[in-house]
């Protein structure tokens, strides 16, 4: 069963594009990454899925429920961690958490207490006295305390220190093991690469790639680093070319044999051909589109 499924989902802001005929599928139980730079439509996708905005056209479903017609049933099963953790400043942390669980008509005290302890969050502090990181922790507890089937996280780690990030991802992995679907939107690629099993890349409101992290990272492109001097102008399929004094580095997605032939004609003192990291893949996807 799909946790998230959109068909040609479109959201326009007047004339401006938000998302454009977006097709996205996330299987239940996935730890899914959603990658894209600022303004690509990540938050718009999430807000439309959660019913904060109405789609201009197209449809979306969460656990088979329609995002426009069955919004409340969806939200009951969903935990959302917004990128900006903003609450009522005069309220105490525990009052916010209680208010949130009352809006869900649930009693989440036990889970809230457990999460606060694990994240080292003082529930008796007032929101207005909290730092960005601590506000983020409140948002995390709000998103998790009712043990939702689907977690939608929008840039979850901004403001969290590395130790807390680890605790946070530990919790996410535990939840994922228990069957919770996790949808992690981020532009921190290492985060996605480390934690997610599948990912989609969004660019200008459209999904341009969606697969397992392994497949995404194993595109034909390789990172080629050369120490020495070779004329590579004749090669096709070169991207991200960086030339130093005695060095040459580029992403190569052309024919391997041609590459080896070309390299053998030059003066190569040292050579490495490696898998590019997701960061480079990401650039690769973006530049590929731009070349068209």
């Amino acid at each position, binding site marked *: 069963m799909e946790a998230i499924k959109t068909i040609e989902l479109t959201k326009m802001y007047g004339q401006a594009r938000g998302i454009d005929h977006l097709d996205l599928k996330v299987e239940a139980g996935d730890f899914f990454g959603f990658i894209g730079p600022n303004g690509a439509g990540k938050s718009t996708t999430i*807000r439309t899925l*959660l*019913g*904060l*905005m*109405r789609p201009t056209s197209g449809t979306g479903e969460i656990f088979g429920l329609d995002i426009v017609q069955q*919004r*409340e*049933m*969806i*939200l*009951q099963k*969903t935990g*959302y961690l*917004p990128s*900006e953790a*903003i*609450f*009522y400043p*005069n309220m105490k942390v525990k009052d916010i958490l209680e*208010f*949130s669980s*009352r*809006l*869900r008509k649930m009693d989440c005290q036990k889970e809230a207490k457990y999460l606060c302890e694990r994240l080292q969050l003082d529930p008796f502090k007032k929101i207005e006295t909290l730092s960005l990181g601590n506000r983020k922790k409140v948002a995390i507890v*709000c998103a998790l305390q009712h043990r939702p089937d689907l977690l939608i996280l929008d840039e979850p780690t901004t403001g969290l220190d590395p130790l807390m990030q680890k605790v946070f991802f530990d919790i996410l992995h535990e939840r994922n093991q228990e069957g919770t679907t996790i949808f992690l939107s981020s532009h921190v690629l290492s985060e996605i690469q480390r934690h997610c099993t599948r990912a989609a890349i969004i660019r200008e409101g459209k999904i341009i790639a969606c697969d397992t992290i392994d497949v995404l990272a194993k595109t034909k492109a390789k990172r080629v680093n050369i120490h020495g001097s070779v004329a590579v102008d004749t090669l096709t399929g070169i991207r991200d070319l960086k030339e130093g004094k005695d060095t040459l580095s580029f992403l190569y997605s052309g024919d391997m044999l041609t590459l080896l032939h070309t390299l053998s004609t030059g003066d190569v003192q040292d050579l490495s051909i490696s898998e590019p990291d997701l960061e480079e893949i990401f650039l690769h996807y973006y530049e590929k589109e731009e070349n068209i």
Partner: protein
Amino acid sequence: MSIFKHELKRNQSSFLTWTLAIGSLLMICIILFPEMKDEMSGVNDIFSSMGSFTSAFGMDKLNFGTFIGYYAIECGNILGLGGAFYASLQAINMLSKEEKDKTAEFLLSHPVTRTRLVTEKLMALIFEITMMNLIIYLWAMIVILIIKEELPLAQMNLLHLSYYFMQIELTGICFGISAWMKRGNMGIGIGIAMTMYLLNLIANLTTSVSFLKYITPFGYCDGANVVSLGHLEGIKIFIGMIFCTLSVLYAYIKYIRKDIY
């Protein structure tokens, strides 16, 4: 009812501040009456011979020397204007403040229908306005008894009831605007209350624009009119409640479809 309760808690301090402010001003005004009464015979002549100023505030229709005449004009302005400002400001912010303070995302990512949200917020508004009016009404009676004036209960009921209707109408109108706005704007709230008040003064000045009295809610809670007529003006209130209802309906329709950024 979580949002209703949450809203009451949130507005507690502004509720107390406004109630206290209006209550104290009203009290001062009432306490001043016994002193004024002795000098009233002269004052009455002056007040009733100030031309258009006299008619603007309805002082041609009332005897300033009687307590109810004094109460209808002096206290009426305090409760009328104060209540109108309070109602407008609360209502204009009620829905839009969630977007202004960026808490809308938190609130609306919970399983709460927009209809429920609008309803509970509207109930909170009406509850606050009603409580404020009840407290002021009881308080005014207590102060009147303290200064040992005779309690003009029938006229007071009419006056306070008409102010209540006026505040409810302004609440409804501003609530509709609140659903439409993306940012809270106190200026619009004060502007609406002030404009409505001035429209009534203008309508009092010249009969050629007396139709304005059917537009502004101050048309049916003009103390001088209410006291001299001895009953409420049903048609004007009815028209006012239609404005109010339409605006509230608009708030529902608009807010249910509104995009939250």
